[in-house]
């Protein structure tokens, strides 16, 4: 039980990840799937940020009067990169969905399957 409490951040990230996966697997609407993908991505980001945190939450800013222990800067840099990659993928996906809607008349995957 103690482990569950100390690792509660990780477990919450896992829970969010799984809900995102559920949306991605079950929902047939392409836009909803992309929303699920975004939720999964943020869950992974939350996981990585959690890995680099310290209990007192001091940001990794070195200044004359800054005292540690600092949060690890590396995960923050990774997540920043990840966020920008995620928004790129989302934008491309949305553009493609709009195109599918225009050309196929639907964005529900099960209906699109019948069209083919």
């Amino acid at each position, binding site marked *: 039980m103690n482990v569950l409490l100390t690792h*509660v*951040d990780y477990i*919450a990230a896992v*829970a*969010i990840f799984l*809900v*995102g996966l*559920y*949306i991605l697997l079950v*929902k*047939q*609407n392409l*836009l*909803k799937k*992309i*929303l699920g993908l*975004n*939720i999964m991505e*943020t869950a992974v*980001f*939350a996981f990585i*940020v*959690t890995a*680099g*945190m*310290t209990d*007192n*939450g*001091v*940001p*990794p800013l070195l200044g004359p009067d800054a005292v540690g222990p*600092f*949060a690890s800067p590396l*995960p*923050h840099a990774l*997540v*920043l990169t990840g*966020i*920008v990659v*995620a*928004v790129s993928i*989302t*934008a491309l996906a*949305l*553009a493609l*969905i*709009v195109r599918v*809607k*225009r050309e196929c008349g639907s*964005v*529900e995957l099960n*209906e699109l399957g019948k069209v083919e």
Partner: protein
Amino acid sequence: MSVSDLFDLLILALLITCVLGIARVRDLATAVTLFAIYSFVLCLLWAHRGAPDVAMTEAAVGAGITAVLFFTAIAKIGRREK
């Protein structure tokens, strides 16, 4: 259990509520609004975790730009999920 821990647990509960809401609602515009709220709460969590840079980016990207992009797409494909 300190105040800080309670704050954390509250935020985590809020996040999970948001994503469950996104999974449940059939209206895409509501789902995206919930996603924007979720991003904003997440950004609070990260600011609290000592990651101000990430929090700032998440606020602008997740709650701002991603949500706007989704809304723009919804305007074209309709807001009802079947």
